[in-house]
């Protein structure tokens, strides 16, 4: 697997939907090889951030730049970064009238992956797919939500991207698949040195795999933890417990 070193620079990135400020990040850098976890409650701006980074949404201000081997790619101004980026946000990434096999073949070919390599790449994710995806002769639209999620994640990994962006990847997956994915992402990062950014509501898995965790609240990154920070887990758990306590007190009052 040949990959490049990709870092991400977010500068004055903001997004407003009408009067609502969905995201406002002044400056934030994600270093090459980082596994960054984005955590935050619903509406914190995680998906908006991913869409802005992937040029799927127009920023109100600012920019996202992917720097690959020293060359910067402003994501809204060119398309070259797409070659080393893999992403899965939701089913809007899936061509649901194909079977998973056809979809993988399609993704491989449009990414220039030789046909003989596709099977060997898919073999790496056999545990994760647990025999329910490939060779089933079902259209993607007829798969369960969990298996659709697996198809999307494997497709994002198929061309061995140097930057992998996954939004809520643990959603819809059964516990075994969640654990399989956790190992899969760890292995992928270790073997390729790829930069991985995941958002999740599953704190346990996120904290397990991430070398760095950013806490989002109402569109702002309010805390940026390194795994080496001894109090990271306690602080994050306290934050979410605090918001529950705050809400319940508010309700009582």
């Amino acid at each position, binding site marked *: 697997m040949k990959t490049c070193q990709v870092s991400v620079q977010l500068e004055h990135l903001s997004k407003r939907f009408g009067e609502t400020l969905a995201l406002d990040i002044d400056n934030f850098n994600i270093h090459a090889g980082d596994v960054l976890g984005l955590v935050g409650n619903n509406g914190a701006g995680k998906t908006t951030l991913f869409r802005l980074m*992937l*040029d*799927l*949404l*127009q920023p109100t201000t600012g920019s996202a730049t992917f720097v690959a081997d020293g060359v910067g790619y402003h994501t809204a101004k060119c*398309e*070259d970064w*797409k*070659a080393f*980026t893999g*992403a899965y*946000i*939701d*089913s*809007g*990434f*899936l*061509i*649901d*009238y*194909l*079977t998973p*096999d*056809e979809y993988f*073949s*399609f993704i491989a*070919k*449009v*990414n220039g992956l030789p046909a003989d390599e596709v099977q060997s790449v898919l073999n790496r994710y056999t545990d994760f797919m647990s025999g329910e995806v490939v060779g089933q*002769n*079902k*259209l993607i*639209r*007829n798969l369960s939500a969990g298996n659709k999620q697996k198809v999307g994640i494997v497709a994002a990994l198929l061309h061995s991207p140097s930057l992998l962006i996954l939004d809520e990847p643990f959603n819809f997956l059964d516990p075994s698949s969640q654990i399989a994915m956790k190992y899969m992402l760890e292995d992928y990062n270790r073997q390729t040195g790829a930069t991985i950014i995941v958002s999740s509501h599953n704190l346990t898995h996120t904290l397990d795999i991430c070398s760095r965790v950013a806490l989002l609240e109402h569109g702002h990154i309010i805390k940026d933890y390194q795994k080496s920070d001894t109090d990271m887990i306690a602080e994050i758990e306290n934050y979410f417990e605090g918001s529950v306590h705050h809400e319940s007190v508010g309700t009582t009052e």
Partner: protein
Amino acid sequence: MKLQQAHLLYRLISKNQRLAEKRHPMFDKNRVMKVFTYIMAAFWACYLIFFGCMFGSVLSDASVETCDIINSCFIFFMILDFFMRFAMQETPAHEVKPYKLMPVPVNFLMDVFLVRIGLKVYNLIWLFFFVPFGILSVALLPYFGIWAFVGYMLGVWLMFVLNSYGYLFWRTLINQHLLYIILPIAAYAALVVFGMITGSWLFDGSMRFMRGFIDWNPLSFLAVLAAIVAMFFINRWFQKHYIYRELSRVERVKKVKSTEMSYLNRFGVIGEYLKLEIKSVIRNNVIRKQYLIGLSCTVMLSLLCAFTPAYDSGFMHVFICVYCFAALGIIMLTNVMGVEGNYIDGLMSRKESVLALLKAKYYFHCVMMLVPALIMITPAVTGKFSVIELLGCLMFTPGCIFPFLFIMAIYNNTTLDLMSKMTQRSSNTKAQMLVSFASMFVPMGLMYALVSLLGNNMAGLVMLVLGIIGTVCNPLWLKLIYKHFMIHRYENMSSFRSTRAS
């Protein structure tokens, strides 16, 4: 259920239905379309009023009563109304679903929805014709008078209410399987054919029955009311049964054989998008229907052109010939990108994938032109069309008509529900409508100018040259369209997401 409670629930459900229409995601962007629809409705109303006045006055010299002439043909109004309802009226199944788990009796729910269908304003639309017609042919005649006119209008309205329940019944069946459409067509066709062949009983019967309304004959009113009540209860049972089937239906997942289509591999990435195009036609209900309709139009037009004397001269000769080649493209490409709206995020995550997709679509539609081209060989051989004329028409389509249709890729931003059972309602924006009209009428205008100025053969030659230039330049104009697509990408992606079915 107490009357007061029933009334309250009726008002509540009615309000929810109005809100559902008002708060539809397409409401805001649809404003222009709505205005356009109102203008078209006003135009249609004027049209009906005009015909109502015309028939009311023109037929007044006939030996039989004017109203009797129209009344004898009332079946044709019913047929027209029935088929127009495909664009206007839906089954209540999906509207009833949200209330199924609420403590409201199902029969009551059904009654509410069925009563609302009966009372829809749409059932009054034909009165635009019958009111002026009735004034001239009934109200103003001293032996009929106002009271007869009121009875006539009431009867006409009841007939269309009956038609709406009839339509609802068939539409529910058609939703189960498209082939059920044959039944109402066959029923109406049989009625008309046998009514004409075996004497004039249909016309006589229709005339007497409708005259019953004018004369306030209780038998006519009782008959139509009985039919309405019968259809009401049939629909009530049928819809209830249908909703249970909908709710308890276990989706039968069909096994699909993965197909490689390796013969397309030689075209590289474009070949992959060509495979997508073919699979999209094969596996998606809506696209398959569009394709079959387009192909049927193409074959019918081509056969008409090739083997009948219709459109043998002048502008129409060239026009129909061009549209033999273009029909499929026009039907499918006016919605270009609508399918891709379902997976637009995936497409946009890969470099220039939309450009490759547009190229694949272009080549697909060019290849599809082989069907009319094969049929049109016969008229070329028999001399009905000159070779230049035919080649001009053939090349004009990919070189001049397709570029206009592909411009829609920049403006189309409504996702097509691929598995929808019926054609979706149009929801175009101002820009989409303008481009859509331009894509249809600019090539037509150009052809008209050429034929008028140069005659058929010379026009064919010019069209051939223009067509070859446009075809050869396809990489250029497709790239240009792609550039503009990218300029509009944020707006389009956002709209595609908001109009996606799930």
